[in-house]
């Protein structure tokens, strides 16, 4: 049975619909990341689960119990806020114990629980300090500790890392992941950072304009995006999306990417696409991740279908571990992620290779994957 189950959840502010029928379930110990651009409704969804916002219709179950009309404190959840929301007038220990104090847990028990969590999070030496005396990372850990100490069924994280600087953010990301693996807690996590989503989640839900675009494992979301939005949103640098055309030659169908200065690139239909859905002459969007565009020599050896083509190198961006090479195809920029030592020169022709196993096709009309 799922720990968290959401069925056809809708939320309206007057006539404005913020959430348009959300269906998600999360098994015990799962890590669900809600990801999407600003204003997509991900925070509203989280607040609805928490009970901080009422819902218009639908059902939310936590541990099998319908919690629609339950007060936040009775839902068996804990939340970590973006601003940490530590009570400034209380010490770290008091902050962590406040929830139990409100639930009339006796003091010795509270102290024991706080001590145990403080040990896990290495907060023991900070218990008597005020939040204002802590660094950003320490505050973050205290906020997590306050949530952990109650041992709720579901943890809710509302963009917890967005107030930290880049390096600390990576450290805390690892720490959250480790915490999840150690304690096996069930977590719902909101972020607009797709790297956080990919690295942390066991399950990702991509939202846009209050609608679920896709729910799946990070691998599914990354490699088989349902539509153009998911393809474009997840991954950095973004997936290359090139306009192409379906043609027929000697019995099979092909995808043609037209170019001005070079010959058109002619590709077989990628294995991921359902060929039956293609019609001759139709326009398609050919999507391929930068890491599936490479040298002829360093393209994945296990790839079943590879297509090569020549193109002029426009920009070379060495990023240390990789080199991003920007060229042009079908009137758009095409980014390739190559080995750091790849000998490419700006302005010269270079032979690129598509790993077509990783390529996907989209219908430009519906923007859905074919």
């Amino acid at each position, binding site marked *: 049975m799922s720990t968290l189950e959401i069925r056809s959840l809708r939320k309206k502010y007057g006539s404005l619909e913020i959430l348009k029928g959300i269906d998600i379930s999360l098994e015990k110990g799962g890590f669900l990341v809600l990801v999407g651009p600003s204003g997509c409704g991900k925070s509203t969804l989280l607040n609805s689960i*928490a009970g901080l916002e009422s819902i218009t219709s639908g059902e939310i179950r936590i541990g099998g119990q319908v919690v629609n009309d339950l007060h*936040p404190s009775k839902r068996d959840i804990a939340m970590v806020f973006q601003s940490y929301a530590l*009570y*400034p007038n209380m010490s770290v220990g008091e902050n962590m114990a406040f929830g139990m104090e409100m639930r009339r847990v006796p003091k010795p028990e509270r102290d024991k629980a706080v001590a145990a969590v403080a040990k896990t999070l290495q907060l023991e030496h900070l218990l008597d300090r005020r939040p204002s005396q802590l660094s950003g990372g320490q505050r973050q850990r205290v906020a997590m500790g306050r949530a952990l100490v109650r041992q709720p069924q579901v943890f809710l994280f509302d963009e917890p890392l967005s107030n930290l600087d880049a390096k600390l953010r990576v450290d805390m990301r690892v720490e959250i992941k480790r915490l999840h693996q150690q304690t096996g807690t069930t977590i719902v996590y909101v972020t607009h950072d797709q790297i956080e989503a990919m690295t942390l989640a066991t399950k990702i839900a991509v939202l846009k304009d209050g609608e679920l675009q896709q729910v799946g494992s990070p691998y599914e979301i990354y490699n088989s995006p349902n539509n153009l939005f998911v393809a474009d949103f997840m991954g950095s640098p973004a997936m290359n999306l090139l306009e192409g055309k379906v043609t027929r030659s000697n019995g099979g169908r092909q995808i043609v990417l037209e170019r001005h200065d070079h010959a058109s690139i002619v590709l077989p239909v990628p294995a991921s696409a359902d060929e039956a859905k293609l019609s001759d002459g139709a326009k398609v969007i050919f999507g391929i991740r930068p890491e599936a565009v490479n040298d002829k020599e360093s393209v994945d050896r296990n790839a079943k279908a590879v297509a090569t083509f020549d193109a002029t190198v426009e920009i070379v961006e060495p990023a240390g571990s990789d080199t991003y090479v920007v060229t042009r195809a079908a009137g758009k920029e095409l980014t390739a992620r190559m080995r750091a030592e790849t000998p490419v020169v700006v302005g010269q022709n270079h032979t690129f290779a598509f790993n077509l196993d990783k390529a996907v096709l989209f219908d430009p009309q519906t923007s859905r994957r074919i």
Partner: protein
Amino acid sequence: MTAAADVLTAVPSREPARHSVTTRVVIYGLLIVFAIIYLLPLVVMVMTSLKPLQEVTGGNMFWLPQDLTFEPWTKAWGTACVGLTCEGLKGYVWNSVKMVIPAVLISSLLGALNGYVLTKWRFPGHKLVFGMMLFACFIPFQSVLIPMATILGKLGGIGQTLTEATGSSFGFGNPTVNLVLVHVVYGLGFTTLFFRNYYETFPTELIKAAQIDGAGFFQIFRRILLPNSTPIFIVTVIYQFTNIWNDFLFGSTFAAGDSAPMTVALYNIVNTSTGVIEYNVNMAAAIIAAAPTLVVYILAGRYFVRGLMAGAVKG
């Protein structure tokens, strides 16, 4: 607390002074001149209150006391005539204290509660309610005198009935209680304004966190909001204390005779029409009357500026 501190640190530090000596002399000269102009009345008051009467009436008022005496002070405090009784200000100061402390505390706490509801528990029409409360700040005192008198009269009637029935009026109709009520009602507009603007910038996530932690409406107020309201609380207390302590109109209208607040008594001392006018006693009485507000401001004035700035910049 942190909000006020943030505002202070956000104020850009002044440019290092590059003024010439003459500019500096002019600036400080002007400052000193104005300081003298502002301080002179106080100096004259203090000096006059320390002189015997014949020295006041006969000599130059800017001269230092030739024959230093504290007799005017003891007289103002203990034996000056207020109306027909000659027991000085002390009883009336006590009247004022009994009125001002409950009035300040009740109006501040209610203002905090209002601010809390108007920012963190918003209901449809909260803007209208706040607008109407603001209206209370702009109504002239005089215009509420008659309706207020009617209400206090009714309360007095209840007190009389209660006294006949039970032997105690439970405070109904008591002049001090009446004044507390009047000042609380009249002060609510201001205290609500102060606290609403302060709580507007108070992070709502803290309230949400407390809700999830299981704290109720009043628990959040008492445990989370109030402990973090020190600066604005001090601002409100200073403001209310000064207003209520210095009030003359309500005091003279609703509390006569023995229960009059100190301001009314001071007026009666100064306005006494029999015998010579004892300027030295009058001055001493006036300083006694003004002292509490001065003390409050000196003790908490630092917070006053901070708190007002927090409201001004962020509210």
